[in-house]
């Protein structure tokens, strides 16, 4: 039986650029009776910058959060794909006793490395048969976009297939929507380069949006704030650069679950996206 109480690590973006992800995740979980207890005083996992510059730092920062979850004695639920990846990597590295000893010294206090880290997508997918649907998403074509950090490397993340994952598709279909079959589910969007090499982000995000649009998707569903930002905030620039009308709303999967469960667009903060999903949802009579 799935535990119904989790320690919860939102991660930095869920308190800022991806607030709508946090709010919709909490709403949906609460109404399903899944309790998310936020870690007290959590701090950054180090994201892509720590592991690009220091092995030890990239383990010690997430280890601090693992220790906090250990103290609560609960499995740790994570929404951000980047945090998920960094926490799972840290657990993997901490299986080495010497590393565990060194990192315990650095963070201070006991660390046993016994915590299970789960992504909210998996938590909700396991509920898919029992979701109380008030507004099934009939007629909505969704391109499920997983990105990289949820699925690779599989031996460490233990999440789903590395190149053709299905978990999100199954959840979306359970909402009454249609998930499209496409080739860019796990192609990278440009990751942490939007400040430094915007040209690369535009190229990669354009390919993803272009194919989804061509295949008739109404929107993309995502589970990563970084993917969301790259795909949502760049659309105007992409359209200008490539003369290609790629406009597609990018929604967090938690927002789609919430919509199907009958929450209002306002409750789910659907107004936060730069590419406004409301006209499309209204046309489909889903908002």
């Amino acid at each position: 039986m799935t535990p119904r109480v989790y320690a919860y690590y939102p991660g930095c973006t869920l308190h800022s650029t991806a607030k709508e992800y946090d709010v919709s995740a909490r709403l949906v979980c609460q109404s399903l009776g899944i309790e998310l207890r936020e870690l007290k005083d959590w701090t950054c996992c180090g994201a892509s910058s720590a592991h690009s510059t220091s092995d030890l730092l990239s383990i010690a920062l997430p280890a601090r959060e693992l220790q906090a979850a250990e103290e609560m004695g609960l499995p740790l639920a994570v929404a951000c794909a980047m945090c998920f990846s960094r926490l799972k990597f840290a657990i993997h590295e901490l299986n080495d006793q010497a590393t565990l000893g060194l990192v315990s010294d650095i963070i201070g206090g006991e660390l046993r490395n016994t915590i299970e880290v789960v992504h909210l997508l998996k938590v909700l997918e396991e509920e898919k048969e029992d979701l109380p649907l008030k507004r099934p998403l009939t007629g909505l074509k969704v391109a499920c976009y997983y990105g990289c950090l949820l699925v690779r490397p599989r031996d460490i993340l233990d999440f789903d297939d590395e190149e053709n994952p299905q978990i999100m598709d199954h959840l979306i279909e359970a909402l009454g929507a249609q998930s499209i079959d496409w080739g860019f589910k796990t192609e990278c969007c440009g990751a942490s380069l939007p400040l430094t090499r915007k040209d690369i982000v535009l190229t990669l995000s354009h390919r993803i949006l272009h194919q989804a649009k061509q295949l008739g998707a109404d929107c993309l569903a995502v589970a990563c704030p970084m993917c969301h930002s790259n795909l949502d905030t760049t659309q105007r620039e992409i359209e200008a650069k490539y003369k290609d009308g790629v406009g597609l709303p990018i929604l967090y999967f938690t927002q789609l679950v919430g919509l199907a469960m009958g929450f209002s667009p306002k409750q789910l903060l659907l107004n936060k996206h730069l590419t406004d999903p409301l006209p499309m949802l209204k046309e489909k009579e889903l908002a």
Partner: protein
Amino acid sequence: MTIASVITPSPISELRTSVEKRSGQNILECYQCGKCSAGCPTAYAMDLTPRQLMRGIQLGLKDEVLGSTTIWLCLSCQICSARCPRQIDIARVLESLRILAIAEKSKPAEKDVLLFHRIFLGLIPRYGRAHELSLGVLYNLLSKHFLANVALLPKMLTKGKLTILPPRVKGASEVKKLFAKVRAVEKQ
């Protein structure tokens, strides 16, 4: 350099030894099939493709490898590692090369990428968490790309996507200590 030394991997290469030690990967396993480069989303923008980079390590071409744009344009998407028929974790190798390039103080071919990482990490011990606005402002000032992403700013602010003030968390002081301890261990 003789032709023989070019086609035969140098048996003792300081670069290869240190990469193998850091990454735990056997670089000589690479038989140059190129699947890594075929799948790499940023190979088109790199001066050396991932396959060429692996060959460079085999040959001990330190300056070319550590001075490549490849190591900084790698997005850590892990597709190379997922597809490698020799089960080499190439993404891990690239990660080790970045760390090595920093340790060697070699001039980064994509200096803005390293600057971004430095600013990002510089803010963590200060605030405990990332703060996008501080990151963006500092990056634009220090990289001298003063207008980078500025056009997005009004919309990000009106949509409430950016918090003006940095987060204040108690954990910040602990994180500061954590950084200091990591640096001390790494100096040893």
